[in-house]
């Protein structure tokens, strides 16, 4: 049974090898069929493992030897517990739907095998990430998903902007990865072990550990998580990552890979439990990222950019939950967000596909007539992300907001910022929804609904977006038990509710009111097309430009980091490299000059050599006999 765990990683890996190296089929249906079959097989395997877990309640683990050096032994250890179960089901389930969607979406590609091979490779790496039972194994998956992200963002590499976007994502992730590695080193230095179970055990029992070092480890891992999960200050790569194909944005840059940071923090929760300062930082970073990204999303025009900033914002909310110790609430939002954000991205993909590549929502409008099914499913997703009951987003967002308010480490400021972010989210998602589906059509392309391959995955995701929240009902409602929290309780620490000025029901009512306010405001402004919005933009022109320019963070980084770095590189290549070259080449030049000079002795004429030999012999003779003759 244990060996099956390796199957989860090997099946998609085989699919990637088959597609990318062996068959290299130019037919989207062949390449996509293989990839989807592998993904679906993985999902079924994950499902059976999950059922087994539900029956027995004991985590599975398996290991193969990797390396050993003296006292340090490292295995390819996999572990399937409740946390992994949730992540694995989300990854393989949504992954399969997105593979299916991709067959319809990538129908006019020249090299679909490349796309599907990367997609399967991503699944394999992501599953390794969530199955790994130690930090190094997790890190292998972590780097693997980063690589696949880079490859898929730059999938259309002939376009230099897209290739550069891939590069940007890779380089920004490197910054976080460096911190991650430092965190791993600190963990090994402290625990003399890198497996999660041993580290958690030692944190709980050993009293020889230095709390300061554990906080540093937590901080380093958190910085690693900000890179992968696009938090301030390392978030600018995610909006640019939208250069990749839309299904990739749905799978990697919304539903799964970007939640790896959340997973990492949840997995190392034992470290964050003993690092209240780092947790506090994490909560505030998340809250301000949520607000900050939401303000940018208010004015964006690109359909995918809006969703990208929305993803950054939602990830920020998840970090708020992690920061206040509500780990299972964060994971709950990971799951519901995966459903509704994947659905939104795929709906956007279906629309972009139907409009032949148009991405500007100001050139859409009235599309509910042309895309009836997409419209229906998008409505559910928008309701879910705005936080309307009883859709999934409501329950998970409410769990986070309530924890931000009522957790011992939460406070009113956190709750207020997170609620404001939710208000803005409701506003910009309604704007998104109204501008795309209502009013008059403002574009030129001829819109048409896609094939069944495009809308079947949407339908499944819509069901998930609508009902996934029911598994994590809050206690305050007294309707259904919190299955999700119960499932995760053996793995994740729980938080103790303290008395806040609002109870759970009160916080919930405020959240609904906030969502309604956001939706209502957007409805008033965008009910009749773009007119009122444009008037507002003119009235608040400086603010509008600031938001449209994304607070000019990219420009700030360009000015403060990229340009000085380039100057440093130029200095290094022109001055330092020159100095090194001269130093290194001096002996080489000396040898060459010496060789040339000495080769003059080799005149080639036999008798000159003979003369030299005889004279040399005479000199030697004189030298040997000089004492005797005098």
């Amino acid at each position, binding site marked *: 049974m244990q060996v099956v765990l390796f199957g989860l990683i090997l099946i998609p890996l085989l699919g990637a090898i088959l597609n990318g190296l062996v068959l290299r089929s130019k037919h989207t249906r062949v390449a996509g069929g293989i990839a989807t079959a592998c993904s679906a097989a993985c999902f079924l395997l994950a499902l059976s493992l999950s059922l087994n877990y539900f029956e027995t309640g004991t985590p599975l683990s398996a290991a193969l030897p990797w390396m050993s050096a003296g006292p340090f032994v490292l295995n390819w250890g996999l572990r399937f517990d409740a946390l992994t179960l949730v992540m694995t089901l989300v990854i393989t389930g949504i992954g399969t739907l997105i593979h299916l969607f991709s067959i319809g979406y990538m129908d006019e590609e020249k090299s679909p095998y490349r796309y599907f091979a990367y997609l399967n490779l991503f699944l394999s790496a992501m599953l390794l990430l969530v199955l790994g039972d130690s930090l190094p194994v997790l890190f292998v998956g972590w780097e693997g998903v980063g690589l696949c992200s880079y490859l898929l963002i730059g999938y259309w590499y002939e376009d230099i902007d897209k290739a550069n976007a891939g590069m940007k994502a890779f380089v920004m992730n490197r910054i976080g990865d460096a911190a991650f590695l430092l965190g791993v080193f600190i963990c090994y230095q402290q625990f003399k072990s890198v497996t999660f179970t041993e580290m958690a055990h030692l944190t709980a029992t050993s009293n020889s550990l230095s709390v300061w070092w554990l906080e540093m480890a937590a901080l380093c891992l958190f910085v690693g998580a900000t890179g992968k999960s696009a938090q301030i200050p390392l978030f600018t790569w995610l909006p640019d990552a939208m250069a990749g194909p839309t299904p990739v944005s749905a799978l990697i840059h919304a539903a799964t890979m970007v939640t790896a940071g959340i997973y990492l923090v949840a997995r190392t929760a034992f470290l964050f439990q003993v690092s209240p300062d780092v947790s506090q930082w994490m909560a505030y970073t998340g809250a301000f990222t949520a607000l900050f990204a939401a303000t940018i999303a208010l004015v964006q025009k690109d359909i995918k950019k809006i969703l990208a900033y929305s993803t950054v914002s939602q990830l920020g909310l998840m970090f708020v939950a992690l920061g206040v110790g509500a780990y299972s609430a964060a994971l709950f939002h990971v799951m519901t967000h995966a459903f509704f954000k994947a659905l939104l991205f795929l709906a956007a993909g279906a629309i972009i596909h139907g409009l032949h590549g148009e991405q500007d929502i100001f050139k859409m409008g009235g599309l509910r007539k042309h895309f009836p099914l997409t419209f229906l499913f998008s409505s559910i997703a928008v309701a879910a992300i705005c936080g309307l009951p009883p859709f999934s987003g409501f329950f998970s967002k409410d769990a986070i907001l309530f924890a931000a308010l009522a957790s011992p480490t939460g406070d009113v400021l956190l709750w207020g910022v997170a609620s404001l972010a939710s208000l803005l989210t409701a506003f910009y998602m309604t704007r998104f929804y109204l501008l795309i589906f209502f009013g008059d059509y403002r574009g030129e392309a001829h819109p048409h609904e896609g094939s069944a391959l495009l809308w079947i995955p949407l339908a499944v995701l819509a069901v998930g977006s609508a009902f996934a929240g029911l598994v994590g009902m809050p206690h305050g409602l007294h309707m259904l038990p919190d299955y999700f929290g119960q499932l995760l309780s053996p793995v994740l620490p729980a938080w103790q509710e303290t008395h806040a000025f609002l109870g759970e029901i009160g916080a919930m009512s405020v959240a609904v009111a906030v969502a309604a306010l956001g939706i209502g405001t957007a409805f008033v402004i965008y009910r009749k097309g773009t007119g009122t919005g444009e008037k507002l933009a003119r009235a608040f022109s400086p603010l509008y430009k600031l938001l449209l320019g994304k607070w000019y963070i990219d420009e700030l980084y360009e000015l403060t980091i990229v340009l000085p770095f380039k100057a440093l590189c130029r200095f290094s290549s022109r001055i330092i490299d020159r100095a090194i070259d001269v130093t290194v080449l001096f002996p080489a030049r000396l040898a060459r000059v010496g060789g040339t000079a000495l080769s003059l002795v080799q005149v080639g004429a*036999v*008798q000159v050599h*003979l003369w030299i030999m*005889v004279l040399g012999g005479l000199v030697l003779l004189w030298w040997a006999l000089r004492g005797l003759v005098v």
Partner: protein
Amino acid sequence: MIPIPSTLAQWSHYIAACLFALGLFGFLIRKNGIVVLMCIELMLNALNLFLVEVSMRSSHPEGIIFVIFIITVAAAEAAVGLGIILNLYRLKGSVHVDLFKSLKG
């Protein structure tokens, strides 16, 4: 041991020196490859003569044993040297030593 005439015994090292000088002189200034080789043989045999004389005088047989060895090596050397000369002749149609300068550095 047969006693050798005293005059010869007294003078043979001068003869050997003269032969060696002749060989060396020819070795350095003659341009015909075969003659250069012959000069080498001359020097070797001058040395042989000297060794024999010293061996006779001191009643030690090692010098004569050395001579046998030198004759053997000289025979081999002559065979190799003549082989080289023959090939050089095939190459250029002459054995003039100044013609062969391709090893110039």
